[in-house]
């Protein structure tokens, strides 16, 4: 090789010459101006490109830093049910308690292995409760033994001590999130330090083996994936690191272009220069997409744990962690609810990798690989379980907070929902509405139902069901169905009359006779009784109990339309039309509206705006706001008592008599049936001393159903109140009311000589003074009367 002489110093001049010559000849082409300028152009272009790329990187670096520092997790408000509280004397038996714990995601076992576990025995239950930050302070984890039976809790004790416990509050059920109405991300934020270490270990093992070694991009990973893909002939392995995946999820789109890949890789490298591996990991754990629930995108492992397993992340077992890591690859393809077999297969692959990497023991592997997925049934799992109630919460929050705060600030909303009451209401509507439908041979799915249950004192909305499919987050009939309420309106006309104790009492005879009313439109309104009969003179309470239309219209006309409208407004509903047909219920209301006005009756005339929210905490668990109920006496206690008494007669001997066949004997409940024209809507609204319940049954297309209030909604209501163990009304008259023994035939005072006498309440001083003919026929003194008995 001629160059071999190059090292010879003696040949240097020659070499120089030769070199010059050679250079001359080598660069001879530069003599061509075209080529020279082309080259210069290329060099300049390259330099410019390099400069631009550098500028691009600098800019990208700024973007990465700014964006990552400014990452504000979209944190929809989390909505919680009311916490379950148990205490000695609580009417929740141990089987019921076990059921509630199961619904909270507590795990039954042979030993207490940590928070969220319990041991059930015949007459006791030992439980390790979860810590939780309530409005009134953080509550620590506790191990408690609960003693009781099928009927209720007898005693409670802190385990490991003799200390008895008066009250035990469990962590509340997460029932939904407030994410944007058009759909969006939902997540429960987690901190790396609080995550079970097995989760990040498994994630790294499966998704990015060299996570702690690479600088954002893994050349080794790329080579391995390329080799695997070439061998398979198609893409079988991705080469993206966790950092790249995070970058893509946070800032980029899913498009598969070289430009996007270059940007992603560049940003990944830059990101790794600014933040620690743990920060990247934590961000990944919160960002990863892990499922789709209708319009809601399930993001992050915190929410995924609730969504699939109905429990917090730190309670997950190896097979559950393996499943979550397994589905990261493609939560749609690996959908545990739709494709369980496919997911089990991949989960087991993950478990095998875990065992091979010795992050789980062979025993754990064997145990885990044989377990089912353990995913909770139903789409929503713990979250999005009660769409109709969460819809109500959302509406009430809308007046209190900005939409953006609700959908992104991670507020924690504590609501009034009672999961037990909600479950009972759902069960009744789901069981009874199809049964009613079948009884009338209606097309399957054509009959709908909705219901609301509230607490009498405090006006708390305990349960809402918006349709027979309680999980369906669509049309919320409990709030949005506004239908004529039929005879549900009658108690308010009667109450208006009974407020005027000088003119009306429960025994006042009403004229159940035809009435023709000329309306402002020129039309003549001629209402009829439901049975098309005329009943003549009927006592006021009986006209309500039997729901006589004509007597009611006469009464309404007598007390005045405006006064009846005023009573409605005082009860909590002021959108009442100014037409006499309101006496018979030509008022469009939703079941929730009805619950509001019946609540005022149930609470002896105190109006409390129905509330679904108790308090709101920040995402850090700091108290933000409380929403205590507000109370206002709007209706007088005495007349409300009299109306309630008559509404009890509706059940005892009136249109709702069927309810006595299911309700506990000896307990008093008050209510009213409602039926609308052509039997389109069937209503029942009523209450005991602790619960108000409203049930509507009808069709979405507003066609006739063939059900009256008594044959439709009442059937649901009666069994609902029975299943709720609703307490009866304490029928002790208030001070403004006195009771008198009355002869029903004459409506006058009775004495023991009147065999049919009934005890009737009156506003004090308004009871009839005159004695009935039957009393006149008896002896004038009790002693004489006694003698007559023994004669």
């Amino acid at each position, binding site marked *: 090789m001629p160059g071999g002489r190059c090292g010879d110093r003696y040949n240097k001049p020659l070499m120089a010459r030769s070199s010059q010559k050679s250079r001359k000849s080598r660069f001879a082409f530069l003599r061509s101006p075209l080529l020279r300028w082309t080259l210069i152009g290329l060099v300049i272009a390259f330099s410019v490109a390099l400069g631009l790329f550098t500028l691009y990187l600098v800019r990208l670096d700024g973007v990465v830093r700014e964006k990552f520092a400014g990452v504000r997790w979209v944190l929809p408000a989390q909505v919680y049910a009311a916490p379950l*509280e148990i*205490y*000695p*004397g*609580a009417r929740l038996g141990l089987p019921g308690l076990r059921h509630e714990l199961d619904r909270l995601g507590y795990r039954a076992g042979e030993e207490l292995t940590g928070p969220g576990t319990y041991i059930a025995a015949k007459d006791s239950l030992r439980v390790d409760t979860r810590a939780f930050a309530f*409005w*009134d302070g953080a509550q620590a984890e506790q191990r408690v033994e609960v003693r009781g039976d099928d009927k209720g809790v007898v005693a409670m004790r802190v385990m490991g001590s003799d200390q008895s416990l*008066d*009250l035990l509050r469990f962590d509340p059920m997460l029932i939904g999130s407030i994410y944007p109405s058009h759909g969006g991300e939902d997540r429960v934020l987690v901190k790396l330090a609080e995550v079970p270490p097995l989760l990040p270990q498994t994630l790294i093992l499966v998704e990015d083996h060299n996570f702690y070694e690479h600088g954002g991009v893994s050349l080794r990973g790329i080579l391995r994936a390329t080799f695997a893909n070439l061998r398979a002939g198609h893409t079988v392995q991705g080469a993206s690191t966790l950092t790249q995946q995070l970058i893509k999820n946070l800032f980029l789109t899913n498009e598969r272009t070289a430009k996007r890949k270059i940007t992603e890789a560049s940003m990944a490298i830059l990101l790794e220069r600014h933040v620690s591996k743990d920060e990247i990991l934590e961000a990944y754990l919160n960002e990863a997409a892990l499922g789709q629930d209708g319009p809601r995108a399930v993001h992050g492992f915190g929410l995924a744990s609730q969504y699939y397993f109905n429990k917090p992340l730190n309670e997950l077992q190896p097979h559950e962690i393996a499943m979550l890591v397994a589905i990261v690859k493609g939560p749609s393809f690996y959908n545990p609810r739709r494709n369980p077999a496919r997911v089990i297969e991949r989960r087991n692959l993950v478990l095998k990798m875990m065992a091979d990497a010795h992050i789980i023991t062979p025993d754990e592997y064997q145990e885990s690989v044989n377990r089912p997925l353990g995913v909770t049934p139903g789409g929503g799992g713990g979250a999005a379980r009660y769409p109709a109630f969460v819809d109500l919460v959302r509406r009430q929050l809308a007046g209190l907070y900005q939409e953006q705060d609700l959908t992104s600030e991670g507020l924690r909303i504590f609501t009034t929902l009672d999961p037990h009451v909600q479950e009972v209401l759902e069960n009744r509507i789901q069981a009874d509405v199809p049964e009613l439908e079948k009884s009338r041979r209606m097309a399957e799915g054509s009959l709908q139902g909705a219901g609301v249950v509230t*607490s*009498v*004192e*405090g006006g708390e909305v305990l349960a809402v069901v918006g349709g027979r499919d309680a999980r369906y987050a669509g049309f919320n009939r409990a709030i949005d169905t506004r239908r004529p309420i039929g005879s549900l309106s009658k108690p308010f006309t009667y109450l208006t009359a009974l407020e005027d104790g000088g003119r009306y009492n429960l025994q006042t005879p009403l004229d159940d006779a035809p009435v023709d009313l000329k309306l402002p439109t020129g039309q003549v309104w001629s209402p009829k009784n439901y049975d098309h009969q005329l009943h003549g003179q009927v006592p006021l309470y009986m006209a309500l109990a039997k729901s006589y239309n004509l007597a009611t219209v006469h009464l309404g006309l007598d007390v005045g339309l405006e006064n009846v409208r005023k009573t409605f407004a005082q009860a909590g509903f002021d959108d009442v039309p100014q037409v006499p047909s309101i006496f018979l219920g030509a008022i469009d209301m939703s079941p929730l509206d009805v619950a509001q006005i019946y609540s005022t009756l149930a609470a*002896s005339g*105190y109006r409390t705006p129905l509330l679904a929210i*108790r308090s709101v905490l920040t995402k850090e668990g700091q108290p933000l706001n*409380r929403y*205590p109920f*507000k*109370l*206002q*006496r709007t209706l007088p*206690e005495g007349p409300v008592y009299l109306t309630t008494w008559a509404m009890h007669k509706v059940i005892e001997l009136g249109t709702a008599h069927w309810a006595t066949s299911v309700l506990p004997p000896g307990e*008093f409940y008050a209510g009213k049936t409602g039926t609308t024209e052509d039997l389109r809507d069937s209503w029942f609204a009523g209450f005991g*001393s*602790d619960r108000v319940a409203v049930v509507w049954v009808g069709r979405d297309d507003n066609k006739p159903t063939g059900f009256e209030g008594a044959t439709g909604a009442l059937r649901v209501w009666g069994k609902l109140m029975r299943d709720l163990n609703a307490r009866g009304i*304490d*029928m*002790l*008259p*208030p*001070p*403004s009311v*006195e*009771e008198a*023994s009355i002869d029903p035939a004459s409506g006058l*005072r009775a*004495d*023991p*000589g009147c065999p049919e*006498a*009934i*005890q009737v309440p009156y506003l*004090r*001083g308004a*009871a009839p*003074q*005159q*004695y009935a003919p039957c*009393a*006149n026929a*008896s*002896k*004038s003194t*009790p002693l004489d009367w*006694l003698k007559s*008995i*023994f*004669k």
Partner: protein
Amino acid sequence: MSFTLPRLIPAAFLLGGLLAGCATEQGQIETSAPAGPAISATPQPGTGGVIPGTGALIPPPVVTPPLSQKYPHTIQDSGAGPAVLSLYRKAQDARAAGHPDQAEEQLERARRIEPRNPFIWQALAGTKLDLKQYDQAEEFANRSNDLARGNPWIENGNWRLIATARQQRGDSGGAVQAQNRADDIARLLSPE
């Protein structure tokens, strides 16, 4: 004289009822707590009637205040459960420490357990006073009165509370009236 069992049974019941001073008849709704107020809210008209068969007026009954000893003085002797008492104590502590909202929270929990316990409503009215929600304080005290079923110990406390609430919102006349009610009840409760 011959008796038949069906005729004897009502007679025996009636006799028992008469001896007890309150006739229980068919159709009467049972009551479980002492009825009637210690002092009625409005002057009561006479509730006399006409003597059967004679047309003569029955003189109005003499209203005597119920024995205050029958009524529980405090929530501790009201039959409240240990859970409620525990929450009530916590509420008292919170109130004493100047945290009425915390007190209210505990009382709300207690109210959910025993929704018709007038002592809880009275304590809630107290927290409303602390929170300067005077209208609500009065409403809650009134509700407590309704549920007290004539318990003068509770009514006395509620009327004093109402007097304070009215005073605080500038209704001096109303405050005096409420205080008078409280004083009237207090006189009934005093041994002299």
